[in-house]
């Protein structure tokens, strides 16, 4: 669905990303993971045409992504980022319906679609009339997801969507998000720095370091066939909590 060919991006004369070549197949969930500054968010923005590569080419569904094609293309891609990126001057409903209104959908069609999505993301209906500031972080994320899904896009790009949530809400939302991704059979690309989250969601994990792909494959490969020393260290760094031994009474 997405293809990057020898893509590179420079910031202040230094390579922030690439050159790299990557294909993201349709109807699969791909996780982009790596330490901060590894270029994973830059990669996501290149896919959407929000930034243009300094070298190489990006294509979506066989069409090259250029400033001319990007806007039409973005209407076929849902995008959600950390803490939602919701507009504070609009209610939840206003945020979700913004693009549909812009495209001139009739109101009944908009309302029907919003009802459908409210069920899908399991958001209490009355919360939609609130402003983003009056919602909790988890609720904001659900509204943001509705907004991304409103036009029934072919692909869903998520940039650290759960990064700002507390652990319990996060687990609940991870589960819902995975169910939704599987049920809708969308092409999902998720950026995260949390390996457990990536493993939980993804059919395939792309591990980045300093703008380059270190390892690309099924999650299990990271443990069983690490590409190099860095992968091993990265995997080990994300261990679970050390449970202390029980103290005899």
């Amino acid at each position, binding site marked *: 669905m997405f293809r990057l060919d020898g893509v590179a991006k420079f910031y202040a004369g230094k390579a922030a990303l690439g050159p790299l070549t990557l294909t993201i197949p349709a109807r699969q969930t791909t996780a982009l993971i790596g330490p901060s500054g590894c270029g994973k968010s830059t990669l996501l923005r290149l896919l959407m045409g929000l930034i243009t590569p300094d070298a190489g080419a990006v294509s979506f569904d066989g069409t090259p992504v250029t400033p001319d094609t990007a*806007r039409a293309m973005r209407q076929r891609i849902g995008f959600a980022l950390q803490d939602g990126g919701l*507009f504070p001057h609009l209610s939840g409903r206003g945020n979700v319906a*913004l693009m549909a209104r812009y495209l001139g959908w009739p109101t009944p069609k908009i309302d029907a679609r919003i009802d459908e999505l409210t069920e899908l993301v399991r958001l209490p209906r009355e919360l939609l009339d609130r402003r983003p500031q009056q919602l909790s972080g988890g609720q904001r994320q659900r509204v943001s997801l509705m*907004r991304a899904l409103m036009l029934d896009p072919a692909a869903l790009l998520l940039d650290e969507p759960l990064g700002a949530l507390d652990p319990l809400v996060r687990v609940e939302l991870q589960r819902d998000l995975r169910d939704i991704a599987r049920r809708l059979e969308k092409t999902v690309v998720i950026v995260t720095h949390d390996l457990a989250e990536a493993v939980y969601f993804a059919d395939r994990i792309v591990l980045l370091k300093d703008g380059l792909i270190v390892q690309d494959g099924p999650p299990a490969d990271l443990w069983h066939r690490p590409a190099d020393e860095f992968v091993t260290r990265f995997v080990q760094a994300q261990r679970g909590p050390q449970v202390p031994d029980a103290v005899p009474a």
Partner: protein
Amino acid sequence: MTRLLLGLLALSLAGCDRTPAAKPVVVGSKKFTESIVLGEIAAGLMRPVVGNVRRDDLGGTPVCWVALTQGDIDIYPEYTGTITRQILQANPPDLDAALAVHGVKVSKSLGFRNNYALGMRKDVAAARGIRAVSDLKRHADLRCGFIHEFLDRPDGWPGLKAHYGLPQVNVQGMNHSLAYRAVVEKALDVTEVYTTDGEIAQYDLLVLDDDAKFFPSYEAVWLYRADLEARHPAAVAALKSLEGRVSEADMQRLNNRVQVEKASEPAVAQEFLAATLQLGDATAEPIGNATAEPSLLARVGRSTYEHLKLVVPSLLVAVLVSVPLGVFAARRPRIGRVVLLATGVLQTVPSLALLLFMIPVMKFLLGRGTGAPPAIAALFLYSLLPIVRNTVTGLQSIPESLRESADALGLSPWAALTRVELPLALPTIVAGIKTAAVINVGTATLGGFIGAGGYGRPILRGIDKLDIPLMLEGAIPAALLALAVEAFFEVVERVLAGRRS
């Protein structure tokens, strides 16, 4: 784009002050009592023969001269010394020919001269042994206060100082009536006087002898456009009927009626025409507003209406221009800096200078250089900075994540601007409009200097006549209007805030 905006501005200006179908005869005058009384007399003389006569109070000599030569006014009272020394800056052998070049004619003397002179308290002068201007050379410490025009004019202080070799350095510019008060209160030692001023007798001042003959003679005359004679020969004949009919004593008495007895200028002019010249008796009735003084409420109502006619159009056009300009400046930061700098520089131009500068500009654009249009244009320019700056700030302070979200959704730049960015920046933009509106209400009072009316007229006339109730008649409503404007915008801000919380 620029032409469109200019056209828009011109349109809104044109809508607010249009002369009626038949072009009236317009009588100008400068902003001091004698000139206004003479202007009223001129209007009274011409009304019976031409009917449609309008009065326009302007600022000083330069404004009147520009307005006369470009046709905003048809006639105003002037003094021969001012014509030669300040307007022509030459002493031509044939004054009529020199003025004909400008399409202007001059009448014979009205019968009195109003010369410049220096005045002092008699006791202060006696204590120092001062009788004549040349005596001032020995007293460098004397404190002098003159009106600004006198300080600038070649036939004023600069010429006088050079002619006599005067040493005084403590010289300030101030209002004529205030300077009189200051001399009486011994806060000043010397001021300039006009020999027909009512105050000379009222305060019993000493007029210093011009012993080295510097001041020229200032015979009062009518200056009028040459084409007035063709358009309304009867009007010019009526004006000329006053030649040689007003004595110095007459003029002093008329000035005194206004300055000291606080009678209105139209009423004083009316009295003079009726009593002294047996003119106007039969025609007194049509000039209703001169005899029947409008009530305080009616006067305040009228100035409020005139004031709003300056403030509202200038502010509306400023919003229409500044918001797009601000959007442009926010999108193109490099050009944006130039835009902000330019509007900032406009803000530092002294308001009076900007008003005067607008007279020829508006004449060129609209064919009308005095009254409301130049005042509205100046107010418009002053309102730009707060609105442009707040629009830029409002747009630039939108978090990057929100801007990116709008972009990522696939909104066009225009839709992102109108549906996301402008609504988010709205509270800041409204705050800028509020600032502009409040400044605008205050600055509009200066419109009184160029005949734009509004609260400035009673304030300036009040200062001139040292008539405090008259001053307050403009100052108090102006302050109240500023507060009302502030309150109005606070409600707007609260409604906007309520919508988003």
